[in-house]
């Protein structure tokens, strides 16, 4: 073969391998979806949503308490993270060129890469150790800490999408910067900010590790914030590593619900972002 021929052949081979890499990555994705949907649908029934877990050895029952628990945990997490992320993100967008803003931005990105189990230990030391009791507040806070960097960064980014003429206009009319930010800029970016919150919810609603020793688990129905609380993820974990077939079945059902919820969050986020982009492109 000529040298040029060899080079062309090598190039073709690499192009082929790169395409193959995409296929290789999509195989596990397809397999996971296949099993979650197949095993999940055959196990999912109304009882799953409405009934409490049955004692060991009895079949049937559901995860009603875990579903409510997850909703409460998400609520606590949002209460912690949304105000901080929203206002912090507003700062980054308004004063983005200051060195301090770069530091915050950088730290937020780094915080995003800290293992969730480490955030769990932090919440444990902060909220469980002093009162010597696992609680929904501790679990929700752990999830909230993980949401903060995501909401901060998306809020900043979406506020930057709003034309700065809006800010200038309101300043020219005599508004203070706070007024311009919170009455003009934030409302204009609101759909996008909601999207950021949705995206961060999609991230944290599947988290298990930070809940193991903060929210712990609860066999009973509880809505109290100062008591241990059940969650879908921890319940799926407990059932998955148990030796009982019926619990395995319910773990798959739980996984399907989790994946579905996350999928809906992400899809919703995409739709809103797309609409927002089109609006600002005009």
């Amino acid at each position, binding site marked *: 073969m000529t040298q040029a021929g060899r080079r062309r052949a090598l190039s073709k081979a690499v192009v082929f391998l790169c395409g193959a890499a995409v296929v290789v990555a999509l195989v596990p994705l397809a397999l996971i979806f296949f099993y979650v949907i197949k095993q999940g649908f055959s196990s999912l029934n109304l009882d799953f949503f409405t009934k409490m877990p049955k004692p060991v050895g009895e079949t049937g029952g559901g995860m009603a308490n875990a579903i409510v628990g997850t909703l409460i945990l998400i609520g606590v997490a949002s209460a912690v993270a949304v105000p901080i992320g929203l206002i912090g993100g507003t700062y980054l967008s308004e*004063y983005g060129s200051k060195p301090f803003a770069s530091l915050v931005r950088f730290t937020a990105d780094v915080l995003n890469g800290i*293992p969730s189990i480490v955030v769990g230990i932090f919440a444990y030391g902060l909220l469980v150790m002093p009162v010597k009791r696992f609680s929904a507040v501790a679990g929700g806070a752990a999830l909230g800490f993980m949401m903060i960097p995501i909401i901060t960064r998306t809020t900043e980014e979406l506020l930057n999408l709003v034309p700065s003429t809006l800010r200038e206009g309101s300043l020219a009319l005599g508004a203070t910067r706070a007024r311009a930010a919170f009455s003009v800029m934030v409302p204009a970016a609101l759909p996008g900010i909601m999207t950021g919150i949705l995206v961060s919810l999609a991230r944290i609603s599947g988290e298990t590790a930070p809940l193991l020793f903060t929210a712990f688990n609860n066999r009973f129905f509880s809505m109290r914030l100062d008591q241990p609380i059940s969650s879908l993820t921890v319940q799926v974990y407990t059932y*998955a590593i148990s030796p009982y077939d019926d619990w395995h079945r319910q773990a798959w059902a739980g996984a399907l619900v989790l994946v579905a919820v996350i999928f809906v969050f992400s899809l919703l986020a995409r739709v809103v972002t797309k609409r927002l982009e089109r609006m600002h492109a005009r």
Partner: protein
Amino acid sequence: MKTPSPRRSSDDRLFRLGTGFFALIVVLLVAGIGLELFRNSRLSIAKFGLNFWRTKTWDPVAGNFGALPFLWGTLYSAFLALLISTPIALGIAIFLSELSPKPLRTPLAFLTELLAAIPSIVYGLWGIFVLVPAVRALENVLPQWLRKTPLFSGPPVGVGMLAAALVLAVMVIPFTSSVAREVLRAVPATQREAAYALGATRWEAIQAALRYGRTGIFGAVILGLGRAIGETMAVTMVIGNNPQVSLSLFAPQYTMAAVIANEFTEAADDLYLNALIEIGLVLFVVTLIINVISRLLIWSVNRQVKVKAAAAEPVQRAREAA
């Protein structure tokens, strides 16, 4: 022309300081995590010092703690996962940014990044019931002479290092590939055009782009390393949770994150709890350093075209996918 009234400028300062305080919380959070973990691991640090990381005995009853097997398990599994995921992730990044037909680009990018949206616990569940049996079957058909080598020794139980490395690899791919894609996109088109003008083939032009963005690509790879080191649930469920230092891919082993997840609520006395938190502290410091380095590398590639790590930019990702 009127100068702004003193009241207004003090209002503006209040706004700056007020919102700045909330931004500061992000920084305080990271500092707080470090302090809190250090404070709660003092007992173990004082008692064992560096021996904690050099010894293998993990005996909660006797109050004797050595974390070497966990450190080994974490590093070995992360290394193997990167070995598998890096070529695949870079292949995906190259295909999506340089080769793919336009209409395929968006859906393929969306699908590969969907891998990042699947919760760890679902990977674990799938790992236990689908991957582990498959790995066990593979272990059983492996020829005897290979089974004698240290890399494949031990009984074919399915759970173990190989299953963990495979799950980790799949979980890391979307992070590495999306950041690498961002980096490749930031490489000026002129780099490739110049290569083509000199008669380069497609692969040679891609090489030129890769070389231009190599720091950022390296950043993408070690961002994946950080993810692999900190990953907890899926690994806990498939690695076998057996503290031993072994080269064997078939051996059940243990990782730092897994031992925290498994034993934290069982830690009856303070020393035991402190030992576990010290493992968490090291996990924190290591991932912190890795993340700082990777962000710096990624940011340095091109300051004009702001390269943003996809992991931190969900909206950006959503927008690209849309």
